[in-house]
């Protein structure tokens, strides 16, 4: 059953140095507040897993939290590159970064296999691309019924999954709607999980199409109003596209980034 705890306590109890950590949220509901708390608690040597690393991983990589990145598209959506990620890959600043690279369909299916308790998933992809030559969690398998060769991807079971959602009730049942990405799969695939929410309510109002993560599949729920900004929380606030554009200049310059990092440390 999920404990309702303050965010610093949740991160301190659930995220350890060396862990494989997935912060998911596909453009929408990205758990920025939790990522910033991980930066504040100086976690090191994390394997960061996320389909679209986005600004949150650029920030965590720049802060030296990560030694490895598992991903499928690493950019600032609609704006350009993730310069902290590029810097870590090219020069090892502030620490060297290894990568494991997939396609979106590959990553999504790795989570599906993880959530399903299976060792791998199959998909009709990757054939003819150069990705399998560089990623050892991509292989092929022969269909036992038709003989067709298909791509196989290893299940992904993070030590911790962290997602952000609109709301939870006092029993820790979490309700999430809008673009739902792979959050459900990431939580169900992970050994431990944390949901940060905009608010805790006495009773969840039904929302058509909403995903509900029952409190008993989660370890902790923490309130973090505005915790997805500058991404967005459908029904609560909009995506701050100007902040995404502004990140480009901060991310390009190590000094500007370090100044940004101090604002995060001081916001504790």
């Amino acid at each position: 059953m999920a404990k309702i705890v303050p965010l610093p306590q949740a991160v301190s109890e659930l995220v350890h140095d060396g862990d494989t950590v997935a912060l998911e949220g596909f453009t929408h509901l990205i758990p920025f507040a939790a990522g910033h708390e991980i930066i504040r608690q100086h976690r090191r040597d994390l394997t960061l897993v996320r389909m679209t690393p986005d600004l949150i991983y650029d920030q965590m990589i720049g802060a030296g939290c990560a030694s490895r990145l598992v991903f499928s598209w690493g950019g600032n959506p609609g704006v350009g590159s993730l310069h902290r990620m590029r810097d870590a890959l090219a020069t090892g600043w502030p620490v060297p970064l290894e990568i494991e690279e997939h396609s979106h369909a590959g990553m999504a299916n790795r989570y599906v296999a993880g959530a399903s308790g299976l060792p791998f998933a199959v998909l009709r992809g990757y054939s003819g691309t150069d990705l399998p030559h560089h990623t050892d969690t991509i292989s092929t398998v022969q269909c036992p019924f038709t003989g067709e060769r298909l791509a196989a991807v290893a299940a992904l079971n993070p030590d911790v999954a962290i997602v952000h959602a609109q709301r939870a009730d006092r029993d820790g049942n979490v309700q999430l709607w809008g673009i739902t990405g792979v959050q459900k799969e990431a939580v169900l695939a992970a050994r431990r999980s944390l949901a940060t929410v905009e608010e805790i309510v006495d009773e969840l109002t039904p929302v058509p199409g909403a995903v509900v993560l029952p409190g008993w599949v989660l370890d902790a729920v923490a309130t973090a109003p505005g915790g997805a900004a500058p991404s967005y929380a459908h029904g609560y606030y909009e995506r701050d596209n100007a902040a995404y554009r502004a990140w480009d200049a901060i991310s390009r310059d190590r000094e500007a980034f370090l100044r940004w990092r101090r604002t995060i440390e001081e916001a504790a």
Partner: protein
Amino acid sequence: MTGTAEPVAGTQSATTWSADEMMSIAASRALRDGQACFVGIGLPSTAANLARRLHAPRLVLIYESGTLDTTPAELPLSIGDGILADSALTVVSVPEIFNYWLQPGRIDVGFLSGAQIDRLGNINTTVIGEYDEPAVRLPGSGGAPEIAASCREVIVVMRHRLRAFVEQVDFVTSVGHGSGRGDRELLGLRGAGPVRVITDLGVLEPDPDTAELVLTALHQGVTVEQVRAETGWPLQVAADLVITAPPSTTELETLRSMRTVGEKGTS
């Protein structure tokens, strides 16, 4: 399949336009009403939304964030902007959009861009140079490999530059025609692959026998020599080379009226 001029909305021709505007308009003309289109962000998204405002009001736009049949009033900055979810027929999870909608071949057209494309239509969005010591690290594959593999056909839209139109891509992120005609079938890829590459200079299409990209249309005011100068292989020119119809005033005004979400006068 050669670059015949597509129907043009409106009758008046505009007087001046940029090469990028011509590219977006030419790309929008390649989409037909009622098709289901899997849209990448950037140039493809602009062109697809333009088509929906002009000649293809029932174009079904699908983004990899899981928004099915979305009708945004403004252009999204990212594939997961809230405006895409708000205006969609429905929103599904990311595993579902790839496994149920894209993989079985339900999508008519995949609309892609890239940093490099080669003679055989293979696309690179991963690295320029060696994978382990790249000269430039690009965003990576995202949804593109499966869009290229599974859509019934693929249309590529990108700026025509010598550094981008290369003999052979540094990294195959998304398969075009692989090593030549027939290779897609050997690889088990079910869609037809790239049927057209629309640039700011003209249009290239695969040769029916070899799958090598051949120049089939020039935009007005562009010469074959200009295109050859920006192409990294000895470019063949179709015998029936056509000139793209210039933008109509309706097309140009509609394109210029489209704004990106959250733009509000700033860049």
